[in-house]
């Protein structure tokens, strides 16, 4: 999936990705048999429930968040950096967008743009903080980004429950956005312009990755950071830039969440669906390649939404789809060294961090 030439069919079939996905589906089928459900019925319920007329809207709106988070994690991953702080960056983006939407004196359409930008700025700033922790303080990015995530989620939760809480409501949520402060939706669906925004971001990522010197630097760092450093790529600067972009995208996902139904920040509504982890899974499955990330995100959005349909028809808990995702990645990671997809002569120490 990462190569520029079109791989031959046999190559696709033999690829570790195909193997992992198939192995995941087979193990999932065993789980289904174990719970007394018919795997074929269950899997067809997943497909019809997510791609049928009733489910496609839901798949696309879930896909918006999953793709957004997948891109946020794929972009640093391309250089071998793992950003585990997506939840915190997304939630800060969401709460910042909510505050902007509620208090901006500008007309509604400008407020929407401002809220999106503010959300992105908040996410970017917080992710940059994690990058600074690695660059200046020597705390590995993997750990600093993850640990920073918890206080951010707590802060947003506090704001939504106390200072910004909707008066008179028993729910932990802010007031609804003023009239017109919302992303336009397509028809009656829950799919908003947010989908276009993340698709545009994916396109920009593809272009950068394929056509620019910066994209080449990123890939080279992912393949072999020592070689890239020798060739003049400044690692600290790259970490800071990539994390900022990553955080901005996570913040964008949060802002889109607030500017779509139910048009407010609801505590837990951004983190509970696990977009960050699904996005990370998608990015890992695609080895952070731009097109692959889009395909994998769509695949996982189908699984997530179809899981609900499966639960309705077969009474098998939808958590099974989460198990499937993780199994796919376990197989993918175990079958071969993850970075060897890009570079076959890497030393075996866990240098992906």
């Amino acid at each position, binding site marked *: 999936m990462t190569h520029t030439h079109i791989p031959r069919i046999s190559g696709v079939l033999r690829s570790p990705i195909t193997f992992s996905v198939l192995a995941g589906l087979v193990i999932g089928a065993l789980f289904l048999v174990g719970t007394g459900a018919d795997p074929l019925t269950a899997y067809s319920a997943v497909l019809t429930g997510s791609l049928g007329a009733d489910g496609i809207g839901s798949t696309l709106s879930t896909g918006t968040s999953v793709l957004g988070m997948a891109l946020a994690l794929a972009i640093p991953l391309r250089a071998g950096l793992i950003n585990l702080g997506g939840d915190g960056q997304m939630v800060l983006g969401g709460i910042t967008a909510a505050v902007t939407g509620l208090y901006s004196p500008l007309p509604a359409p400008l407020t929407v743009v401002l809220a999106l930008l503010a959300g992105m700025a908040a996410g970017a700033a917080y992710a940059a903080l994690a990058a600074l922790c690695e660059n200046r303080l020597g705390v590995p990015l*993997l750990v600093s980004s993850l640990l920073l995530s918890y206080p951010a989620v707590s802060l947003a939760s506090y704001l939504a*429950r106390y200072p910004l809480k909707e008066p008179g409501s028993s729910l932990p949520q802010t007031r609804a956005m003023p009239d017109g402060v919302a992303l336009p939706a397509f028809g009656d669906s829950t799919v908003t312009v947010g989908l276009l925004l993340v698709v545009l971001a994916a396109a920009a990522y593809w272009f950068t990755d394929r056509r620019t010197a910066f994209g080449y630097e990123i890939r080279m760092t992912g393949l072999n950071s020592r070689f890239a450093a020798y060739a003049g790529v400044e690692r600290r600067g790259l970490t800071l830039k990539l994390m900022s972009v990553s955080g901005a995208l996570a913040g964008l996902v949060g802002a889109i969440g607030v500017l779509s139904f139910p048009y407010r920040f609801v505590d837990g509504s951004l983190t509970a669906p696990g977009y960050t982890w699904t996005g990370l899974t998608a990015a890992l499955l695609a080895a952070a390649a731009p097109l692959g990330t889009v395909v994998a995100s769509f695949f996982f959005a189908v699984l997530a939404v179809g899981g609900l349909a499966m639960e309705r028809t077969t009474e098998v808990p939808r958590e099974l789809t989460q198990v499937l995702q*993780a199994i796919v990645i376990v197989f993918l990671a175990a079958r071969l060294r993850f970075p060897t997809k890009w570079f076959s002569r890497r030393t075996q120490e866990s240098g992906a961090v």
Partner: protein
Amino acid sequence: MFFDSDLLMSALRALTPILLAALGGALCERAGVFNIGLEGMMLMGCFTSVATSWFTGSAWLGVLAAALAAAAYSLILAVGAVTLRGDAVVLGIAMNLLAVGLTSFLLRTVFGVQGTFDDPSLAGLPLIGGFTPLAYLAFVAVAVAAVMLSRHVWGLRLRGVGEAPDAAATLGVSPAKYKYAAVLISGVLCGLAGAQLALGNVTLFSENMTAGRGWIAVVAVMLGRAAPVGVLLAALLFGLAEAAGFRLQGVGLPQQATDAAPYVVTLVALFLSTARRRRRTVNSPSGATT
């Protein structure tokens, strides 16, 4: 008084699961396997201990089952990272995700509930002097690990495998065997940590109940430089932060602030320790994992 014996007691209670998991992580680190799957192994231990305790009526069988289940689960990392030479970081992340999904799935299929399983007839661990036997065991484990690593030939070989696998292999020590052993022991310890969490001070299972403690344990390994006593001090710091958080909640601080406290304290401690280490060893290679 803010700092009194009660605070210390609750700090010691809070540190037990972290300490057990972090000890396992430290052994893996010494053997040259980066183990960030501690969180997932712990969570598997939580669920297995509760399920076994409920079906058998014995908390001790729950503890045993948790240790075995988490050890079996740790095989994913051992086989994937040691035998198949997969990426330990990605494997660990996937194991954490798998554990969340698997335990939530099992919670619903086995117990038919969502969120939390909490039953009055569920047997919990007995308390001796305010602590579970596992808490005492954790301190014994620190001492054993410290002696093994510094004095015993097994521990010295383990360190050799981690520091220079080729040299160890030349001397007839099989690196794979020692790495497997370290990962499996970390599984057992994480299983005990999970049992302590689920059957210790509370007696219940709830989805994702480890809530980042496995990650804190990973940080404790770094803070304590993978030495048992260092890990103990790091876990104590976390325990104090959690206990102080609870105390402050009683004074009227919002729950969100106290929830965040352990992570912030851990992070700050990590900053300080790495910054100090950095100043001491200038020109260290940048971007090292530990």
